[in-house]
């Protein structure tokens, strides 16, 4: 047996190839990880990062290639096997059982010291030790469903620490965290690396990769396209490696002629799912050719606001006007007919039907129109034509028109929805989290389309947690906190600091809590 030495990487994956029907997910990928390093795996959705990691975690075997741990070839056949070899994975979607307590979630799958009985007291004690050492605040006795997203993330990390993982895979761990939570997470991860653990950090967020990693490997279309050191690279270079061409990180924003207000919202009060007021008397208006960005941490009433405007949720009180015409509340059809389009936050739940194919999803709204339907029968020729035009125009990547929407990548689904929503040239567009979970190339394209629509005179409301996105797209920025607008500032006057304060509920300049730019 060879002694473990600094020169031998703790993990090496050599020539990994994996095919799925019709796709080469990994093509001769090699990757190594040194002790105590944070190695970022950067790539767009579908570049093969997750496949590579799932092979490492024993979910499925590679078609070719070999995995070495500390210089020894291993065949990892199951997650249990990987865990036994000191590999732990923090998945993009948390692998937690909401109805179990934190301690139970941590103990799951491990042999108890009091087998067959559980020994949750011992587990609780150990969790407390770990949370003290690493500053991971979490109540071991709380049920996971009671925890906020950031706390759940901490539970995932504790699970890995509890298993004494020497290799930790983090699959897009920041996707659902607020900026503050991301900072805390990075601090913990650095601390873990310093303690001698090796981390694989999967992401497509350039600035996070730059901030955290010791080394960066970039994947595109299943192949390694480059390796870089954060000290001697730049976001633009990384983006180019990821996408394969130069990327514009913010769209051009030509000056538009601000005309009449197209969307007016007045004294809107909306009840949330918990039966309390989620939106507390909002008023604002958006003019044609203007983008109003709504910034704020998720859960401060943004979703309810969007749904109320779109008629999906009946507001308690308040008025919504499109082009001066009042829209009946809680009536999605009327809102649509008044010229409104909606790109929803939960795109697979509210934006597309997963099992419907591409063209069916394209005609969800207008399949009743004469051009698509005659005497109750669908006219497939014009439908296919229409769909093909949209696919070409919006560069939706799909094998064919019959592919179910669920088989598309996040970015392509979003392009599909955007294509459908913009094809009617809306008067008002509500876009909620338009690029969340979407790769850079697609995000760039979506931003361009939104900007194009702005030029065409649409009044756009962009709701986003991504402050960069809000700053890049908006003419004015409204910050929502606990159902209220903390203030609306012009883009030129908006600084990150000022908006960050407002997102935390601090009023930067008094008094107007409810800013209402009504012309009277």
């Amino acid at each position: 047996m060879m002694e473990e030495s600094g020169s031998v990487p703790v993990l090496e994956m050599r020539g990994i190839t994996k095919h799925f029907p019709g796709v080469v997910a990994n093509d001769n990928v090699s990757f190594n990880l040194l002790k105590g390093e944070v190695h970022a795996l950067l790539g767009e959705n579908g570049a093969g990062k997750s496949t590579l990691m799932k092979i490492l975690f024993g979910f499925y075997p590679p078609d070719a290639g070999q995995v070495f741990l500390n210089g020894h070839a291993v065949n990892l056949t199951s997650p249990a096997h990987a865990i036994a070899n000191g590999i732990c994975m923090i998945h993009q979607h948390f692998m937690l059982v909401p109805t179990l307590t934190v301690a139970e979630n941590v103990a799951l799958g491990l042999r108890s010291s009091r087998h067959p009985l559980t020994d949750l007291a011992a587990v609780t004690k150990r969790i407390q030790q770990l949370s003290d050492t690493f500053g991971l605040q979490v109540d071991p006795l709380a049920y996971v469903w009671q925890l906020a997203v950031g706390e759940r993330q901490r539970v995932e990390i504790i699970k890995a620490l509890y298993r004494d993982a020497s290799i930790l895979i983090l699959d897009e761990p920041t996707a659902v965290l607020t900026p503050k939570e991301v900072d805390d997470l990075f601090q913990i991860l650095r601390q873990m690396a310093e303690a001698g653990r090796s981390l694989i950090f999967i992401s497509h967020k350039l600035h996070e990769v730059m901030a955290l990693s010791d080394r960066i490997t970039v994947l595109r279309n299943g192949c390694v396209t480059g390796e870089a050191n954060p000290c001697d690279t730049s976001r633009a270079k990384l983006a180019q490696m990821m996408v394969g061409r130069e990327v514009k990180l913010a769209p051009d924003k030509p000056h538009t002629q601000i005309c009449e207000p197209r969307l007016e919202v007045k004294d809107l009060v909306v009840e949330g799912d918990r039966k309390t007021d989620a939106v507390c008397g909002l008023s604002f208006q958006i003019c044609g050719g203007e983008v109003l960005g709504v910034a704020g941490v998720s859960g401060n009433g943004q979703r309810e606001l969007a749904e109320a405007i779109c008629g999906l949720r009946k507001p308690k009180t308040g008025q919504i006007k499109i082009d001066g015409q009042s829209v009946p509340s809680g009536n999605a059809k009327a809102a649509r007919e008044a010229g409104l389009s909606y790109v929803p936050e939960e795109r697979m739940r509210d934006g597309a039907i997963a099992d419907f194919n591409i063209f069916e999803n394209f005609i969800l709204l207008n399949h009743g129109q004469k051009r698509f339907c005659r005497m109750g029968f669908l006219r497939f020729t014009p439908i296919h034509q229409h769909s093909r035009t949209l696919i070409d125009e919006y560069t939706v990547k799909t094998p064919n028109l019959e592919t179910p929407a669920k088989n598309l990548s996040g970015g392509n689904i979003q392009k599909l929805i955007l294509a459908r929503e913009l094809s009617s040239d809306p008067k008002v567009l509500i876009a909620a989290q338009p690029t969340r979970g979407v790769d850079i190339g697609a995000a760039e394209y979506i931003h361009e389309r939104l900007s194009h629509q702005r030029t065409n005179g649409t009044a756009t409301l962009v709701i986003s947690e991504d402050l960069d996105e809000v700053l890049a797209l908006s003419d004015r920025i409204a910050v929502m906190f606990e159902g209220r607008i903390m203030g609306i500032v012009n883009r030129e006057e908006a600084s990150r600091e000022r908006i960050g304060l407002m997102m935390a509920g601090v009023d930067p300049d008094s008094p107007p809590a409810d800013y209402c730019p009504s012309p009277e």
Partner: protein
Amino acid sequence: MSDLINTTIIIATVASGIRLATPFLLASLGESIGQRSGVLNLGVDGVMLLGAFAAYYTVLKTGNLFLGIMIGLILGALIGLFYAFITVNLQAQQGVSGIGIYLFGLGMSDLLFQKLVGTPRPIMPFRILHIPLLSDIPIIGEMFFDHSLIVYVAFLLVPLLSLIINRTTYGMNIRAIGENPEAADSLGVSVGGIRYSALIIGNMLAGLAGAALAIELGIFQHNLTNAMGFIAIALVYFGAWRPLGVMAGSLVFGVVAAIVLQCKTLGLIPRSASDLAAMAPAIITILALVVVANRFRQPTALTKPYVRGG
């Protein structure tokens, strides 16, 4: 004098309710374990019928009650194995497969009965098991400790299963894969293995319920269970998938049925309302179900076959 009669009647009614509740309790305990692991089995009644016939036939031929019970359990285990194969390996749609099991049990038990037995012949039923001290307590003893062994077993299973579900790693695994099998899988818990075992245990209890019914009644005939298995499934929802809740549900159903019977016997319910009153246990159970259903959520993964990475 009349006080004495009233006491006797109350004792008899409670004891009757407990006897009526027993097969429901066994079957719904079994069903709750399967459902906790994320698999719905609508075939409980069919398993009960097969268990009932197997036990009846064994006792008829051998006169050995213990052997009858064992055969009922083994048969349940075999069906559990088969059902696990269908739902775990073949990933069949659980609602339809369960109905298939039910129809199979209903038809097969009757076919076997006709071919092997024909005319109903009585078998020796359970004897009352006298428990020293407990059975001698006045009133309480007669209500709760004047039953056959199987009744005690059924009710002792409640704390035992509570312990297994809530306090063992095995129980924790069951709860986890019923909620989020992916998470359990990612931690190295064998989703398929746990579901297999949960379904085998669950169907063993259904087989036991049938065996207990046939031996308690000392007879078998076509559709002996009279759809008890379906009520047992409702009682699982009533009991919010917890052994204690399931017990409460079974007792409500059994005791209400016993009270209605006793009231009819005493002429307290007019003959014209007789059939309406016979529905009381079902109606009360449904009402309770509605109240409970709003408070508790079913296991998230219930009825969903688990496919890795799917």
